[in-house]
């Protein structure tokens, strides 16, 4: 319950950010950080709690994004309906990928490579079929109104991503405290042992990938409505898959706050490098890489693990002193 209270406190504080931070540039930075945390949390459900490392979360993200864009532009469907449809289509794609991989017992690097391949197949499809605009991409007409899921202010977009992120974080909290979560973590730690104890790994992993796909798809819907333009490389390109897994790896996989910490650290570094070092092309990417190497070397459990290790060391020192 302490964790839930802390989560509530963090998101309550985040809710009021647009009232305190009036600069649109800073609002945008915080918004993009929260969006990265959402992407990371979606991956964390499957990768962190389920132990199934996906290299192709762009498959879910892109499906969500293209669903809302295609429904809107080609069929005139309201984007609020597209928001729901985008999430559901991503769930459907996740179910398909999950069924075809888990059914045949793919694990570890095999699973990672297959997910990467699925995202690539979808990228090529989006690049070919006419209803996605193929290589030209798809442009959502600028028509700012709440009914159209387009807002004039950054604050409104911020609250939209805040709401989706809150749902994702609450889901992950529930996973951490539910029977389903216990089964999922058991599968992650030792699938054969979990099966021996009566857990159905296939069913558990299917639920995890579908939940993961849902939030990744919703992040895609948000992206489409925020930037109003998609092409196959943006929607299904490897950059989204990499960002999805980098955030929880840096922050702490399999932890509730890991993706948030990771997103804050990575975006913070990126912003700070640009502000402090100035306009040196590519410097933020160099720092990105350096941080990742350092994290893997010295904090393999991410920032959340580092915080836990440091507090454990402090506690043991206090105990020794007593």
């Amino acid at each position, binding site marked *: 319950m302490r964790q839930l209270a802390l989560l509530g406190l963090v998101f309550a504080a985040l809710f009021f950010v647009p009232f305190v931070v009036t600069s649109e*540039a800073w609002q945008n930075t915080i918004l*993009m950080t929260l969006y990265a945390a959402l992407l990371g949390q979606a991956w964390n459900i499957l990768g962190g709690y389920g132990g199934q490392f996906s290299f192709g979360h762009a498959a879910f993200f892109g499906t969500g994004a293209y669903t809302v864009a295609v429904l809107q532009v080609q069929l005139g469907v309201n984007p609020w309906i597209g928001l729901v449809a985008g999430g559901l289509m991503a769930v459907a794609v996740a179910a398909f990928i999950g069924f075809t991989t888990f059914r045949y017992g793919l694990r570890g690097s095999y699973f990672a490579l297959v997910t990467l391949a699925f995202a690539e197949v979808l990228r090529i499809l989006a690049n070919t079929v006419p209803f996605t605009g193929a290589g030209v991409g798809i442009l959502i007409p600028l028509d700012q109104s709440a009914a159209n899921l387009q807002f004039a202010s950054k604050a409104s977009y911020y609250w939209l991503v805040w709401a989706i992120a809150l749902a994702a974080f609450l889901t992950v909290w529930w996973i951490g405290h539910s029977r389903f979560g216990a089964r999922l973590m058991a599968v992650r730690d030792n699938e054969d042992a979990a099966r021996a104890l009566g857990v159905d790994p296939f069913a558990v992993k299917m639920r995890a990938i579908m939940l993961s796909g849902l939030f990744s798809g919703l992040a895609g819907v948000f992206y489409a409505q925020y930037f109003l333009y998609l092409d196959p490389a943006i929607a299904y390109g490897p950059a989204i898959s990499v960002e999805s897994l980098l955030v929880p790896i840096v922050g702490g996989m399999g932890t509730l706050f890991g993706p948030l910490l990771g997103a804050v650290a990575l975006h913070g570094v990126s912003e700070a490098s640009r502000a402090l070092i100035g306009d040196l*092309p590519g410097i933020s990417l160099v720092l990105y890489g350096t941080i990742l190497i350092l994290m893997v070397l010295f904090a393999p459990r991410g920032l959340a693990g580092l915080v836990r290790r440091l507090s454990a060391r402090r506690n043991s020192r206090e105990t020794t002193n007593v």
Partner: protein
Amino acid sequence: MTDTKKTGGLRRREFLATGAAAVGLGITGFPAILRAQPAAVKLGLIHPVSGFIAFSGTQCREGALMAIADINAAGGIKSLGGAQIEAMLADSQGKPEIGAAEVTKMVEAGADGIVAGYSSAISLATSQEAAKTNTPHIVDVGVSDQIVERGLKNTFRFSPGYGKTAQFAVDNLDTINKAAGSPAKTAMIIHEESLFGTGTAELLQKRLPEKGIKVVDVIKHANPTRDFTNIVLQIKSKKPDLIIPANYYNEYVLLARTMRQQRVEAMGIYSVLGGAASSYQFVKEFPEAADLIMDCNHWFNPKSDVAQQRKAAAEAKGLIYTYEVFLAYNAVLAYADALERAGTTDKEAVNAALAASTLDMSYMPYGPTKMVDGQNEGAQPVNTQVQNGVIEVIFPEEFASAETVFPMKS
């Protein structure tokens, strides 16, 4: 009685004399210091200076900075009391969302205008973000016609889009082919997969059959692609009379080299917005692969002294004078011209001035500048051909510096 009264350590007479001298010197000797300096005009330059299109993005930035330096050296914006233009630099990293975020930051930091973004996808995002604050936005390089078809009042482009370029390319190809007795009957299009390559290829596929040229195949490739052997083998098997590439610099170079290595024989290689066909770097590094390649692309007016001077100035700085350099230069000039006519940095007024621009662009192979919905209708590409290591303009005739060589010698 002697005057012994002191003022601040000086005798009164000394103080008065020094003060008078200082005032006099100030009025006559340093008028510029005493006059209030007009506030600098802040112009945001957003380009992908890192990432896979970093070379082109850096070229754009250098071109824009050259223009700013020239404008400032010539006395700044006269109607604003000689206000200097101050560049605000940002790297979009080749990502639309970062480009858009940089616009937000720049506008908050007081940017009066934006010049961006090299890629069509980035330009779509940056112009849309700038539209939210009505900030004037000039697209330097970005050929997608969607950029100026969204009805944004703040978005302008002085160079041609791919619709016009493809139409021009087909019409000129037809003229060149007919002049040679119509030997070319078939063509094959090899294009990159993003907006510019796909859009251009779609238009060519539609228009070429109207001119009696059958499109035997269209091959799309990813960015980056590092091995063109299979694509070139397909070209060899189809034996098209014309090969039409539309891709970025690196892929273009690799494709052209592989075609030479595999001894592909065609009547002509006719690029549309070819990433390297009109590049001095390509011609210098791979003269054999580049020889006799024709291109339909952005280019300067080779008969204009102003254009030649700018080329020489860029080369003196160590720059390769690619289209990115002069298109970004032109975009900044267009913004400065609008400021000059508006006499204010008020965004509404500058947008109106840009929309009414009739800027003399005789250093480009363009017709009179005429803005329609943010697009300069006078802008057009030209046909170039590499001949003996020199990039010559071969079409339209009024700008041509050499005769067309077609069909190519085997």
